[in-house]
C-alpha cells in the first residue's frame, strides 16, 4: 500500500540529492542542474498533498497543482536567465568553476 508518507520520503530524497549536489559540486552548470532537482522535489510533494486532499466533488484539490504550474513557469524563466549569466561569465573569465570566481570571497 503506497501512502502519502512514501511520496514525501521520495521527495525528501530527491531534494537531498539536489542539496548535496549544490554543496559538493564545483561546476556551476551542475550546481544549476541540482537547483532544478530541488525545485522538482518540492513539486512532487505539492502534487502528493493535492491528491491526498479529495474535495467534496470527488476530485483532488487543484490549488496545489496551479501552484506547481506557477513553479514550473518560474523555473523555466530562471533557467533562461541563469544560463545567460553563465554564458556572460564564461565570456569574461573563461571558466565555469566556482573556485575560480572568488572576487567576493572574504
Amino acid at each position, binding site marked *: 500500500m*503506497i501512502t*502519502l*508518507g512514501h511520496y*514525501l520520503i*521520495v521527495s525528501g530524497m530527491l531534494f537531498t540529492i539536489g542539496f548535496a549536489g549544490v554543496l559538493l559540486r564545483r561546476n556551476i552548470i551542475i550546481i544549476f542542474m541540482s537547483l532544478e532537482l530541488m525545485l522538482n522535489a518540492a513539486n512532487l510533494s505539492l502534487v502528493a498533498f493535492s*491528491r491526498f486532499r479529495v474535495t467534496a466533488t*470527488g476530485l483532488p484539490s487543484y490549488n496545489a497543482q496551479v501552484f506547481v504550474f506557477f513553479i*514550473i513557469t518560474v523555473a523555466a524563466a*530562471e533557467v533562461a536567465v541563469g544560463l545567460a549569466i553563465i554564458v556572460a561569465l564564461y565570456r569574461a573569465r573563461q571558466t565555469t568553476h566556482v573556485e575560480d570566481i572568488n572576487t567576493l570571497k572574504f
Partner: protein
Amino acid sequence: MSPFLFWFFAFLMLVFGAAVVLNRNPIASALSLVICFMGLSALFMMLDAFFIGIIQVLVYAGAVMVLFLFIIMLLDLRVEKLRKINYVAVIGGTAVALAFFLQIYFVVRQLNAAQQPFPALTAKTDDVHNIGALLFTNFNLPFQIIGVLVLVATIGVIVLSKRELR
C-alpha cells in the same frame, strides 16, 4: 496506483538524480537529468495529475534540457580535470545533506496523515479543465504577474547576451 510502478519510477528517478551529481561529464549529467524528470513525470501521472505530468515532460525534458545541452555545447565543456579535493568540504557537505534528510524522515514518520493511503476519487478526473478554470478565477492576478515575469526574463536574457553594453 500500483506499488510496483511506484517503486520502479521512484528508483529510476533517484538513481538518475544521483547520477546528475556524481557524473564528471556535464553532458552525461544533463542526459541523466532528462531520465530523472521522466520518472518524476510518471510519478505525477500516478497521482492523477496528468496535466502536470505532460507539462513536466514538455517544459523540462523538451525546453530546459535542450537549453542546458546547448549551453554545454556553446561553452565546449569537457570532462572536468581532477582538482585537489577539499575533504573537509566534502565531508561537511555530505553530513549537512544527511542530517537534513534524517530530519525530513523523522518528521514524516511522526506525521499521522502520512500513514494513511490516498482516498479514492469518486469523479472522473478532468484536470486541464479544472486547472484552467482556477487560473482564470481564483488565481487570475498571479497568472498575469507570471506573464510579466516571463516578459522580464526574455528582455533580461537578450540584454545579458548582447556582446557589448552601451
